[in-house]
């Protein structure tokens, strides 16, 4: 039994960069960075938006878009100031009722006549439903649109109930789904060339198919050394669990090849985040793939999970929470990291911090320390482009995987295969359509 533990802390909040061509546009807080410097990517033309909504809600949605453009007290200057572009509504698609079938009908009608190259994002008003139900307007419309190459952003009655604070999150999500990069880390993560958030056994819905044997999909989100999300890739077809290693091989090979093409260099130090514990077979499979493709490489297997009962407190902070950036060593390669505790970057807390348990394993030799990993994970909590909230508990590698996992559990195999087919993938893979 552990009677005491040692710890450490990250002294300085990681900085973010808000201009690709000006390295001095730096700020530790997303809100203030956007307000002062605008987004990292300033070359986005006006965003072409399609609104899909029931008739009685259409005016509210249009008003919301107008306010995004013109600004609000929280977002003064609106899109032109915070994201250096405007939103242009190019089409309004009406939905007959709030029933899932009506949404499906409108979405199918729309995708059958429109061209995804002419639309950046579809903004859809939907009723609020549980995330764990699959046959809802949310999942159905998201899947129908994504399978034809349209990123979508959903809004509900809750968005309007909390509109004051929704504008900026909505704006950021729409901007990134339109292909813009809102912000990245100022400094590269130490000793990292390529970072992957991977999932290899995400169960897919049994919708529209016979049989009860569960089938799975795998997917990967690839980030560069600045934590910039580069692309998403998924396995082409759902598979049975026994085939997962073959699928992992396929996924990893494709991701590394694409990384090499985009970045024009071979990654040497590769870090893979996984929200489960790494199995021996999975690790060996990764090593085999990297040996085949790269030869000279280092790989770090990092598992991050928050499903443990451990909590830490600090009596020295005003609210007793263990400060953000503090971590306790459970052993040489395992820590508990606080990402939502006391911090100067935010006034509002999220209750007792639910700590991230981080484990590190490396091959063939150590190239990164557990302290570097702590800083890396803390940095990655700042890169969720769907929110400007200063406190995000999970790193973006996990968050994105979780978002896709919710989606895969609700969509059919046909939807998944459509989303990952090359002609759709070429449009969607550079846009975080799933956030």
């Amino acid at each position, binding site marked *: 039994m552990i009677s005491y533990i040692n710890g450490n802390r990250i002294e300085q909040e990681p900085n973010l960069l808000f201009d*690709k061509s000006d390295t*001095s546009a730096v700020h530790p*807080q997303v*809100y203030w960075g956007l307000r002062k410097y605008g987004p990292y990517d300033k*070359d*986005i033309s006006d965003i072409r938006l399609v609104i899909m909504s029931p008739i009685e809600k259409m005016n509210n949605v249009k008003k919301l878009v107008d306010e995004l453009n013109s600004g609000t*007290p929280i977002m003064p*200057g609106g899109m032109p100031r915070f994201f250096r572009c405007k939103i242009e509504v190019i089409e309004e698609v009406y939905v007959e009722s709030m029933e899932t079938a009506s949404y499906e009908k409108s979405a199918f009608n729309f995708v059958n006549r429109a061209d995804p190259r002419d639309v950046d994002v579809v903004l859809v008003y939907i009723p609020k439903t549980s995330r764990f139900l699959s046959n809802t307007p949310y999942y159905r419309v998201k899947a129908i649109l994504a399978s034809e190459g349209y990123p979508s952003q959903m809004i509900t009655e809750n968005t309007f109930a909390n509109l004051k604070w929704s504008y900026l999150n909505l704006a950021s999500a729409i901007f990134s789904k339109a292909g813009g990069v809102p912000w990245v880390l100022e400094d590269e993560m130490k000793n990292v060339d390529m970072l992957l958030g991977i999932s290899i056994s995400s169960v897919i819905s049994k919708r529209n198919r016979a049989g009860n044997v569960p089938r799975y999909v795998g997917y990967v989100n690839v980030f560069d050394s600045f934590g910039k999300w580069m692309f998403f890739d998924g396995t082409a077809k759902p598979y049975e669990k026994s085939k997962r290693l073959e699928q992992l091989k396929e996924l990893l090979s494709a991701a590394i090849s694409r990384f090499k093409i985009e970045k024009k260099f071979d990654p040497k130090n590769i870090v893979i985040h996984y929200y489960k514990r790494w199995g021996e077979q999975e690790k060996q499979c990764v090593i085999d793939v990297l040996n085949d493709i790269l030869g000279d490489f280092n790989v770090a297997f990092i598992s991050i999970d928050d499903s443990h009962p451990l909590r830490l407190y600090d009596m020295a902070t005003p609210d007793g929470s263990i400060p953000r950036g503090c971590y306790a060593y459970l052993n040489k390669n395992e820590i508990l990291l606080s990402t939502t505790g006391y911090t100067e970057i935010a006034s509002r807390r999220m209750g007792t911090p639910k700590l991230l348990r981080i484990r590190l394993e490396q091959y063939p030799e150590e190239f990164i320390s557990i302290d570097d990993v702590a800083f890396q994970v803390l940095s990655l909590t700042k890169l969720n482009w769907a929110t400007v909230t200063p406190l995000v508990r999970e790193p973006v590698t996990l968050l994105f995987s979780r978002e896709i996992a919710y989606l895969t559990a609700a969509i059919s195999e046909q939807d998944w295969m459509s989303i990952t087919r090359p002609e759709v993938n070429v449009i969607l893979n550079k846009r975080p359509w799933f956030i």
Partner: protein
Amino acid sequence: MNLELLEEKLRNIITEDIRIYLSSGILEREDPLGYSIYLFFLTRSGIEGDEVDALIDWMNSWIEDILNRGFSRFIDREFTALVLGYSTLKSINKLQIHVNVIDKIYKEISNLIINDLFFGNLTYSLIILLSLADQVDLIKVFDPVLNRVKRYLERQSLFNDPKNLVFASMLFERLDARAELNTLIDICFERLQRNEIPYSEKIYYAWVLWNYRFIKRSELPTIVEFVESTLKNVTLESFNEKVDNSVKEMYGSDLKPKEFSKIFISVLLDLVVNFKRYRLSARVPDFIERTLEKLGWEDVLLELKNALRAFDENRLGDCCNNLRMGLATLLTKIYESLTGKPAPIKPGKSTDIPEILKVLKMYGLPEDAAATIRLTWSYTSERAHIEKRGGKQPSVEEVRYGIQLTFSAIEFLLHLFFK
């Protein structure tokens, strides 16, 4: 608004920045583009000093170094810095690199295109095109990228990022793309009139409208007022916007004091230097103008006005020539008016200034004043003949001194003989 003080502050910021940067090891230097932008604007503004010399030496060694070690994964910043640094050094005859830089640039440049832009980024593309504007015919990818830039202008997304306006206007000027330059200036001016320019972007708009004011000559008073008010409101101190308390509750207080980007500081300094020059020389003093008009000596007045325009447009040798011509014409007119005879001409047909002054002394021009006027004429003549100075333009300070000397001499002469 104290432009002298503002200029000094900006130069101090740059000098301190350069000092810190150059004292770090060459491999740790991670912002070559920022410093090559400093160098570009400092030389453009005609600023000289130890910091500029240090930057020139650094730029030469950095270019040599990067070509030897090759580009890193930051090739976007490095390549843009290389091209801008190379063209700046070349333009001021300070390129001391033994490697064939331009061949390396030709070799790399076609591989850097993403979506018809260099590195898929508009600012990098504008800087690279601007730096290589004299190589248009030799670079295959120049035109496709330029066309993309023109499309950005048509769609007005060029205006998303105001620093792009500065580089785009210089690019269009250098390529003699009049239509695009006019469009850009028209849009900037329309936004000014509609009061649509956010505070944080005003410096860039002011720079563009000021530097290309000749396109909107009839709107000069509005532009001058805009530049003056923009410069008056510049603050280099830490500044916190007044914000709703709930913003601080939700997003935390702004934890970072105001810091300025190198591009912002460079553009602001360039604007201050150029605008200061204009304010100094904005107009011929009232007394001189009124008296010359009354006497019907518009040719003298025209020379003086041309001198100020040349100064304004950075044609410093021409400015000195107009000053000397204005002074010589005035002396000739005074001589002819007092003696009723044509002014003496030296062999070679230039006005014999010493002979004229000798005669004017007989009409009451004090001996020491005559000597000073003769020296003023020699001073401006010496600086007008840039071919005798190896093509080197006189400095801004020398010419400002010449303007003040000449105006003082003319005012004195008019007072003495025609009050």
